[in-house]
């Protein structure tokens, strides 16, 4: 691979926008752009511009004005890639973007490959591998918590903790290795109980990291929330109201089964993904039955369930009956169920005893009149404690998750082998397996699959 070539790419999202940014990097790129750029200020030459300066002027190809632009200059090594770099901010029409790129390519600048800017940053020592990996996550993050996770990982995050665990395990391994290689020379034997304790301690820590993967992934993708209830209790109205009330971005994220669209709202930086449960009613229609089955499947994935009932028409006993029907959900420790008493606008006052009788977290709202909706938002946020996000190592990367799972498998084999009294050379073999997998997370073990994986995750231009 030639890392001396100049490369260019669109750095902003393709399509129409107010402005678009095209990034050029590589030795000679400032001079190259200078030859295409007519600065507004006379007597100024872009190729003499200082690093970190912005210049206004025209981009001209074949004596024809393409656009008036702002050009930012970054000089080696103080740029993202560590090379001489230029960023051209042009007007955001697809035609201008297209034309500009075309002409840059014609003038001898190659279109960058996916991840190539970051790869150059990496090669020039601007970031390490874990940071490069985190950059991919960072670009993809669309909520504050996902962003925090990526930033945490970019700074080293939990791989430091895994590094410490691995070190302990290496200490353990070397004791066993010593015993094996010097078994003829009466060396003192390592205390098996102590070793077993250590293995179990490491296992516990890895298990908790693996569990945090679910949580980390949830934070990254949005916490799944299901709104359930009988037809006509106001589920759709409630969802719409929530979407409107929280002025945050509403995005469309395809669901895991890729057959339904989910709405995501962001409350105070935390993403919540609302699972569409329309159609949850008894039916003879086969197609609808399939839909319901899928819905039920999705409810299983939910971490929070908003259980909506109509306080205006339902009696206490009816409500209790519905709750009993869904007892399995309510008793599921992995889910938090919040009862939502809707349509309080149709009541003069909330019937007495309601709260006491239900013995569950209950919020009374009017979805239609947007009353008490903020109470739901507050309650949703309680599902995520700040400490959980900020203080704990959270695994959110699939590659890391796999390596942790493989390590755990190997550690289980170690434990099993030790309990069965299997020879220590085989125990050592399992320890080596665990060290290998843990090493792929901390970067102590490098193989080219990992590197491919990391740089493949970029879209073009980063």
């Amino acid at each position, binding site marked *: 691979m030639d890392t001396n070539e100049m490369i260019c790419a669109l750095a902003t999202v393709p399509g129409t926008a107010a402005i678009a940014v095209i990034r050029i990097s590589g030795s000679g790129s400032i001079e190259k752009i200078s030859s295409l750029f007519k600065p507004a200020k006379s007597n100024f030459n872009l190729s003499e511009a200082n690093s970190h300066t912005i210049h206004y002027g025209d981009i001209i190809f074949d004596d024809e004005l393409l656009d008036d632009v702002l050009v930012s200059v970054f000089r080696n090594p103080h740029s993202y890639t560590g090379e001489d770099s230029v960023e051209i901010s042009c007007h955001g029409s697809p035609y201008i973007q297209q034309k500009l790129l075309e002409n840059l390519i014609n003038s001898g600048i190659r279109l960058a490959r996916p991840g190539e800017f970051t790869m150059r940053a990496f090669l020039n020592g601007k970031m390490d591998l874990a940071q490069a990996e985190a950059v991919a996550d960072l670009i993809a993050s669309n909520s504050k918590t996902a962003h925090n996770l990526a930033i945490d990982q970019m700074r080293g995050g939990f791989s430091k903790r895994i590094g410490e665990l691995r070190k302990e395990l290496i200490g353990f391994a070397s004791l066993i290795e010593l015993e094996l290689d*010097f*078994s*003829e020379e009466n060396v003192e034997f390592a205390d098996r109980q102590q070793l077993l304790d250590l293995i179990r301690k490491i296992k516990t820590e890895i298990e908790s990291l693996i569990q945090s993967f679910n949580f980390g992934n949830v934070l990254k993708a949005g916490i799944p929330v299901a709104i359930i209830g009988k037809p006509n209790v106001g589920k759709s109205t409630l969802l719409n109201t929530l979407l409107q009330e929280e002025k945050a971005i509403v995005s469309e994220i395809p669901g895991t089964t890729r057959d339904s669209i989910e709405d995501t709202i962001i409350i105070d930086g935390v993403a919540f993904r609302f699972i569409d449960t329309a159609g949850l009613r008894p039916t003879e229609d086969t197609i609808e039955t399939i839909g319901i089955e899928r819905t039920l499947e999705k409810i299983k994935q939910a971490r929070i369930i908003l259980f909506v009932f109509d306080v205006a028409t339902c009696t206490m006993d009816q409500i209790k009956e519905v709750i009993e029907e869904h007892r399995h959900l309510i008793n599921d420790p992995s889910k938090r169920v919040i009862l939502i008493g809707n349509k309080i606008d149709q009541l003069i006052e909330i019937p007495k005893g309601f709260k006491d009788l239900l013995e569950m977290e209950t919020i009374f709202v009017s979805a239609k009149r947007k009353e008490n909706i903020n109470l739901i938002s507050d309650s949703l946020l309680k599902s995520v404690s700040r400490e959980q996000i900020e203080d704990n190592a959270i695994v959110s990367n699939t590659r890391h998750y796999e390596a942790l799972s493989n390590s755990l498998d190997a550690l289980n084999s170690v434990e099993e082998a030790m309990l069965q009294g299997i020879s220590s050379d085989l125990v050592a073999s399992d320890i080596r397996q665990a060290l290998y997998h843990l090493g792929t997370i901390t970067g102590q073990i*490098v193989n*080219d699959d990992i*590197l491919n994986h990391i740089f493949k995750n970029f879209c073009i231009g980063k």
Partner: protein
Amino acid sequence: MFEEYDIIVVGAGHAGSEAAAAAAKLGSKVLLITMNMSNIAQMSCNPAIGGIAKGQIIREIDAMGGYSGIVTDHTTIQFRMLNKSKGPAMWSPRAQNDRMLFSIKWREILENTANLDFWQDMVVAVLTDGDRVTGIKTGMGLEIKAKAVILANGTFLNGIIHIGKKQFGGGRIGEKASKGLTESLNAIGFESARMKTGTPVRVDGRTIDFSKLEEQKGDENPQKFSFTDTPILKKQRSCYIAYTNKKVHDALRVGFADSPMFSGRIEGIGPRYCPSVEDKINRFANKSSHQLFAEPEGWNTTEYYLSGFSSSLPDYVQFNALRKIPGFENAKIFRPGYAIEYDYFPPIQLNYTLETKLIQNLYFAGQINGTTGYEEAAAQGIIAGINAHLKINEKPEFILTRSDAYIGVLIDDLITKGVDEPYRMFTSRAEYRVLLRQDNADIRLTALSHKIGLASDERLDLVNHKIKLIEQIKSFVKKESVSPEEINTYLEKINSKTLMQKVKIESLILRPEVTLNDLINRITSLNNFVHSLDKNHLPEIIEETEILLKYDNYIRKEKEVAQKMSKLDQIKLSDNFDYRSLKALSWEASEKLTKIKPRTIGQASRISGVSPADISILIVYLGR
């Protein structure tokens, strides 16, 4: 007096003997030069071959058609398979040998090798033409031409022997040191440094009270090293275990002031894992006793080697301390222990073939590369001998990888990491220990060696026969079942869970407490099947089959990792790669890489000072 040789081998120790034999067998015209024809393949230290990791190496050499295993089998006085209670990766053959017979047997084999000539002399210089070796010059002033030269000088280069304050030149006790050669190589541009090793006192067995020692007998059913039909031991001699005590330690401490080690007169670095007895009591002051082994030196001699009592303290201090050991109160000694310092050439100056990077067709093998041990030396000898022959015949190199053999681990370690103390093989140095077993050395290596023409057709037939029978037994036990009636009595007897219904025979072999031999004796169908097979080497074949079935899970897992890692060994690095131009590499990494010039990313990743981050940078740079 001499015509031009294809290959000259300098030194007839374990490395030189294997090198000369291999090259001559392959068809090169070889001259073996030694300073003393009566000391060919001398065991300078322990009268023993093999042990943990070292036994595996001898099996590998044998599988390739080397002679160390055969010579050992012909001269063994005691055999033990170490670590039989552990998994098969740790099973390590070890033999006590008759020191004199060992040397005689090697000489007999070499003298019966076609294409091999001998000359007794000291080599004082290598002759070169530009960057190519052309021959050697001897102490008698002769110049002998050769297309390739293998240096296997052992501990002889500027060797100095220390006993207390006394020091004198020598390559081994009673033998002259080799002078001039180091300086000749330094002048060409090779770097050299000093190392140190030691050996213990030899005791007169007639003066040892064996009743006060613990007897250590050989195995009841002694095995052997060679995969060929070498003789099996009929009778054996025992070793004896003794212990030091506080009085012994005090007696040794008297001499500390005169110790060449503690006084700094010895500059060379000694091996940490094979310390002298004064080192042990100095470093582990709270340990009140150390284990010693009295090893007989042969069938018909009364001489005993006192393993664990290596020392360079003054002779009278060694003697007085010896007499404080229970059983040695009246001991007389044949000669004291001593330390020896010698020149070695840091092996990062070598390629995988053991050819030097600086001078073409010049090879280094054995202790000259900073290793210790007969086995490690012999392994380098056979690799250097093979490759010198292949090079002058313009044939492709013969290189074993880390997942092929301990020999591959040894050479990769030497040329990649260098040595900072005398290098000895350990099983922990091999990342694929479960794959590199003593029992499968032939399966791993014989075909490879046969392909280049070293391992004979008979050897290849033998291993093919083994592989065929293993497959037959394996498919039988995977296919055929055993009923509860037939096997439950046995299972009960060995406290194994009894069967409720028929199961495949294989599933029983997976139980740690069950052996294949027991099953053969108890399951009629299996018994009939096994007895219908060719009897040749059947016991080994049954054992090998059992290992492959029982440890399949471990073998498979290691193979997977080996495969993953071997990808890195397939990414080639050019010798001309300009590491200094890659700004992201650490300074230390770029210096080391520039010096060592690794062939592959895999090798680069094993250089100390080259971090995983540096490796990622190289991989990404190469566009992988």
